[in-house]
């Protein structure tokens, strides 16, 4: 939904700001030109997910402006930036819970619409929010299967739960992902922060055949050192199953050790894309603080 000013203009930046440094990119981000971009990976294969020219304003606040980002198959992409840089808005747009004012997404080269969270999920995009969206009053298996319960005898909501089967499958899933949780019958409310995070991850990838992209907002924000290491290990494990993962984090060293590439955002724009292997923490922080959108490689 475009937000308009009282004078009838849309909530775009003033002309001088858009025209000068980024004229070429403005043109590139229009739909017709999208395939011929220079973000194509070295081996010539297309990225799994391409985000082109995505903008979004909330009232007068410009949360995102003309953002282009690629997500390659099987990579971990870190997104860093200060508070208000637009990281979360970007994630929510990919996850379908926020609609962009402009721009489009392609998946495997095909233009796709993620107008709703359900549409995103059908495309294989799963999002884990910072609050994890777990049900503290339900047990581990119930949380993993919520909304996708195995039932029998009666249709729809009247169906009887196949509890034993779900507990068995949940336990298998946890084992396959190497997640240490005593019993799938524990209510999630009694688990530790790290265990909760891992249950949320397990739930997101429980139906692996469909899931292609996993979006995670601050997966280790509330965790201690040991617990966050366990969670990071799980994220690597999931990547080894072929998923592409996008991670927002404030912990730069952690992102650099985990991710393949790191996108730096500032004031709603992408200011840099760094190769995590050859970037130092200092460089990353420097881009967060002093990066300029026009200089993006």
């Amino acid at each position, binding site marked *: 939904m475009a937000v308009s000013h009282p004078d009838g203009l849309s909530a775009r930046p003033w002309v001088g700001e858009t025209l000068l440094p980024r004229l070429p990119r403005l043109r590139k981000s229009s739909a017709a030109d999208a395939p011929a971009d220079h973000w194509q990976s070295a081996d010539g294969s297309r990225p799994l997910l391409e985000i082109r020219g995505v903008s979004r304003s909330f009232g007068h606040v410009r949360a995102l402006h003309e953002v282009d980002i690629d997500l390659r198959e099987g990579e971990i992409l870190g997104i860093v930036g200060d508070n208000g840089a637009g990281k979360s808005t970007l994630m929510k747009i990919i996850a379908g819970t926020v609609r962009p004012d402009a721009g489009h997404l392609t998946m495997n080269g095909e233009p796709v619409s993620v107008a709703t969270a359900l549409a995103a999920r059908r495309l294989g995009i799963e999002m884990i929010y910072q609050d994890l969206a777990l049900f503290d009053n339900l047990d581990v298996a*119930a949380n993993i299967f919520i909304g996708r319960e195995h039932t029998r005898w009666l249709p729809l*909501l009247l*169906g009887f739960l196949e509890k034993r089967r779900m507990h068995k499958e949940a336990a298998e899933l946890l084992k396959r992902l190497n997640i240490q949780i005593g019993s799938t019958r524990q209510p999630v409310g009694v688990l530790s922060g790290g265990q909760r995070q891992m249950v949320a991850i397990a739930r997101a990838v429980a139906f692996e055949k469909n899931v292609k992209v996993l979006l995670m907002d601050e997966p280790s924000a509330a965790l201690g050192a040991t617990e966050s290491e366990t969670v990071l290990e799980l994220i690597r494990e999931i990547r080894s199953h072929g998923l592409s993962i996008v991670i927002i984090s404030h912990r730069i060293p952690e992102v650099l050790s985990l991710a393949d590439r790191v996108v730096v955002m500032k004031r709603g724009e992408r200011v840099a894309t760094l190769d995590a292997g050859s970037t130092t923490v200092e460089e990353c922080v420097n881009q967060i603080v002093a990066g300029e959108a026009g200089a993006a490689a």
Partner: protein
Amino acid sequence: MTAVGAQAGRPASRNNPYWLVRQVGRGLLAQNVLLALALVFLVLYLTLNLEFFFTSTNLLTILRYSSVTFVVSVGFTLVLIGGGLDLSIGQGMMIVGVVSGNLHLAGVPLAWSFILGVLTGVAIGLVNGLLITKLRINPLIATLAMLFVLWGTGFLVTKGRSQRIRDDSFKFARQSLWGIPVPVFFLVAAAVVALVALNTTKAGRHLFAVGGNPEAARQAAMNVDRFRLGMYAIGGLFTGVAGVMLVSQQGLVAPNSGMNREFWVATAVFLGGASLSGGKGSILGTLLGVVFVTTLANGLVQLAVVPEWALIINGVALILAVAFDQRPKGGYR
């Protein structure tokens, strides 16, 4: 899935030698166990102090009166578990009775006057649900407003007069089958249906989910509003059945028959472990709560205690129940 006493799950530190001791300790502290113990003490006290308390006649009377309260309390419990609230149940029962009774007096066949009465309850629940999910009115306000509207409507329709019903077949709830009061069969049926639905079906699981974390339920692609609408309608169904039972038991179409019932029901259900914050509660707990409250009322009457004391004791019990629900996990500081 165990709904109540969720904290009594298996802790990860099961290697701890005191694990079992701790589990038993936790079990004893579960709200339902405390409530059951309180009920046992109450029954003991009343038995020792009243000549005619522990007699089959009196116990059956308690059961008979528990039944009506229990059936409406089941609906109240379901709505609470789903994160809602319905204060209009008492006046809803009254309206259901007025509809049923007047239809019967107007010559409508018995079965139809009962069925239309129950459907009135469902309709009231649906309107509550629409007010809450469509107009986004807080459940407390919406159902409180409904309480007043129904109350006024009842007095308007009956012109403030009570009307006796002479037909004995209308008063089926006064009869007994194999020595057991008819309402007790309703109690058992309501308990079984609610227990099975709540604990073994997808709908029951989703009710706990929607009440426990509505935002997460939305993210799990549930239609929370539509679900809650159905929940209020089902709550209204139980109100409808209880309303028919009440008018049949009293044999009287009376505009004041619903007064203050919501408070007794709320006390019973909160004592039974349900919580205003949703996602918590059980049918067994509600049954215990209802029997406790009814037994207390019965005992106080026989002890010739001024009825006002019953109100005070209920208020204190309600505070204790809610304080127990809110207790911090690590203990008070």
